[in-house]
């Protein structure tokens, strides 16, 4: 009997663990180590952040689901990896620290035969002075929608702002990225339009100034270098699409921006043209940059081998080509296919936890040398697909032996669909549905944009909102492993 340990219970980790448990049956053991007691459907946090959903609607308890699936669940965070074991044993293990109420702070070494790192990101608030509290948590000046609890907090702050506007006090809303190297513009994009929609519903839109701040070099980049949509034989760039939406909803924008400092009611920023400025706000939701969760790695002798296993940003190295190259030489083949660690073959990474070889958008920096560009999104659909492919590979390795063929899921050969909400409501909701293929442009296969335009399209409207709402229920149904869950795609 072999043991698979999955670190993390997000989209990637949960997908890997549940499929592995199903395919391995009772022959082998699957262990999930995640610091959270609840699973969170993160895309719907946007709606929690505007008070349109409760925390309970977007989360559920993991323990009973894992018990049903026959998965050993440890509510703990991973601290370090010993892929070669230690002096007393050759067996690799991961050191975990419990976070549950009953066992909080307890340390345990969990041995593994295979391990999948799907820890997701550390929300690196402290990368921007004032955005964090100096201890790795969110600061007090801004709000976030990255976790369900953050979103609940954001909705309270939003309600306070609405009350002030009803009392005749003008409010300035600032939503976007809190650092020049953020990813997840999509979440902020959804949030700003959901706020706009809620303010309209509350009848206070005329009392609000709404502004977007982002590290994208053009509106509609979304961390993917933008996309082009075919509409009726014509081509519309996501730039025009986004600009029209912003203009239509009367939302101002500031792009190419690195938020350099956050204070109470004010941010300082630097732009791609080198200029610096300040922006005041009454309510700000700024997405933090992502970093690896800070896992350490040690060899048999106890020497620190973190830099061998992890990239400098803390994400795990996998079968990608990490040789630094100029933009002109980026290739689709730089991107990982199997997500296997090159040094330790029984180690995989899925979702945000793997280190991408480079960004997707065009790299940009200000004349002062500050890099200001979105980092690659590895969330949602790609995360799920990668998680499932890794589960396949690990199961084959465990059941067919070490020579088993590994399953592949390159982001340069993978499409992604994204439904971005721009307001919630049965008849008044809107959402932009977009598909892009492949996520990472392949300039050799598709000269020009690097994408197959037959599979890249976008549309905005009420139907999009319905789809988004249906997906919310569908994915939570799937994550709860209710009957037929394997039939629901990633």
């Amino acid at each position, binding site marked *: 009997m072999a043991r698979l340990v999955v670190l993390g219970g997000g989209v990637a980790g949960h997908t890997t663990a549940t499929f592995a448990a199903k395919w391995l049956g009772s022959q082998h053991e699957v262990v999930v180590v995640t610091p959270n007691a609840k699973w969170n459907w993160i895309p719907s946090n946007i709606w929690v952040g505007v008070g349109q959903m409760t925390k309970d609607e977007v989360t559920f308890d993991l323990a009973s689901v894992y018990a049903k699936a026959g998965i050993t669940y440890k509510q703990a965070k991973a601290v370090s990896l010993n892929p070669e074991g230690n002096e007393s044993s050759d067996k690799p293990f991961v050191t975990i620290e419990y976070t549950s109420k009953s066992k909080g702070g307890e340390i345990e070494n969990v041995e593994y035969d295979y391990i999948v790192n799907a820890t997701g990101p550390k929300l690196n608030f402290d990368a921007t002075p004032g955005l964090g509290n100096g201890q790795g948590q969110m600061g007090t000046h801004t709000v976030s929608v990255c976790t369900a609890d953050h979103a609940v907090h954001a909705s309270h702050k939003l309600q306070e702002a609405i009350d002030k506007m009803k009392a005749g006090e003008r409010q300035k809303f600032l939503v976007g990225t809190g650092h020049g190297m953020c990813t997840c513009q999509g979440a902020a994009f959804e949030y700003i339009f959901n706020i706009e929609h809620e303010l309209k519903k509350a009848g206070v839109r005329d009392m609000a100034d709404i502004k977007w701040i982002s590290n994208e*070099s*053009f509106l509609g980049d979304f961390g993917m*270098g933008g996309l*082009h949509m075919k509409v009726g*034989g*014509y*081509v*519309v*760039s996501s*730039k*025009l699409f986004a600009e*029209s939406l912003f203009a239509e909803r009367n939302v101002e924008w*500031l*792009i*190419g921006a690195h938020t350099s400092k956050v204070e109470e009611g004010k941010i300082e920023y630097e*732009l*791609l*043209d*080198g*200029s610096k400025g300040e922006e005041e706000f009454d309510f700000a939701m700024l997405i933090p940059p992502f970093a690896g969760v800070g896992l350490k790695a040690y060899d048999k002798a106890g020497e620190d081998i973190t830099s061998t296993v992890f990239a400098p940003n803390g994400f795990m190295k996998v079968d990608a080509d990490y040789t630094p190259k100029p*933009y*002109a030489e980026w290739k689709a083949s730089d991107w990982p296919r199997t997500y296997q660690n090159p040094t330790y073959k029984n180690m995989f990474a899925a979702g945000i936890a793997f280190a991408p070889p480079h960004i997707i958008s*065009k790299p*940009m*920096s200000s*004349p002062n040398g500050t890099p200001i560009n979105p980092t690659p999104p590895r969330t949602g659909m790609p995360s799920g697909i990668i998680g499932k492919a890794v589960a396949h590979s690990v199961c084959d390795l465990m059941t067919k032996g070490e020579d088993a063929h590994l399953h592949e899921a390159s982001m340069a050969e993978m499409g992604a669909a994204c439904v971005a909400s721009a307001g919630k409501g049965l008849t008044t909701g809107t959402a932009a549905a977009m598909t892009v293929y492949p996520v990472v442009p392949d*300039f050799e296969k598709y000269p*020009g*944009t*690097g994408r197959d*335009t037959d599979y890249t399209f976008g549309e905005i409207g009420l139907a999009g909102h319905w789809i988004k709402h249906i997906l919310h229920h569908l994915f939570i149904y799937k994550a709860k492993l209710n009957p037929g869950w394997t039939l629901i795609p990633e």
Partner: protein
Amino acid sequence: MVREIVKYPSPLSVEYGVDVRVFDEKLFALIDDLKDTMNENNLDALSAFQIGEYLNLIIIRDGDTFLELINPRLITHSGRVVTEEKTAYYGDLSANVERYEKISIVYQDRDGNNKTLQADGSLAVVIQRKLDYTFGATFLGKLSESEREKFEAKLQYGADVGTADYCPTTFFRDKILKAINISMLLMVFALIGSFFVSEADVLESMWHYQLYASFFVLALNIFYFFYAQYEGKIYTSCTSCQIGNIVGTFAISITKLTLLMVASYFIINP
């Protein structure tokens, strides 16, 4: 080499404008072609899109030299200004477009170095107009609704002149016609309703209703007849068959009313 400029109605955006990734001889040759085409056609600015090359590349005349803007991005803007613009894609047609007064852009030069540029006045406007092209659009998307309607009329006529008026899609006279039809429908209901009524006094009041309604409808018809012709004369550019339509509509309406009243006289009148 002088290249052919893509002109309306050939669509600009059937292909994709993408960032220049490789700075090589091919790119330099394209830049030279753009300059030749500008000189030949006496243009102040040209984007690669306009000669059918789908790259984010703009050339702008700056006195005797040229500004080569590769992968330009508009970063900051301030102020608003409305100016009359023309662009080679639409030939000699012009439109009033709202633009930012001052802008700053970042771009790359032919060696791939990152550059910044602050611009105001006409340079700012021309850069913004060309930036529209780099993502496959024209200034049409930047026009206000009324300005766009005017510009679309100009496109139809192919000239700036004689486009002071345009055909609205709905006329006020159509609303009068709607009022007439609704009134007559109510009269038909009254006529049908009378079959279920046997009391003489109720029938009598129904007949009175029918009579007054017919006067009202007649008055509306007469108003329609004159107002519609007056409205037709305002929009002289869309007079095709209009007068005939108006007379015909009036005649049909009066005939319907007459038939309705004859039927009412025999059925309702006690």
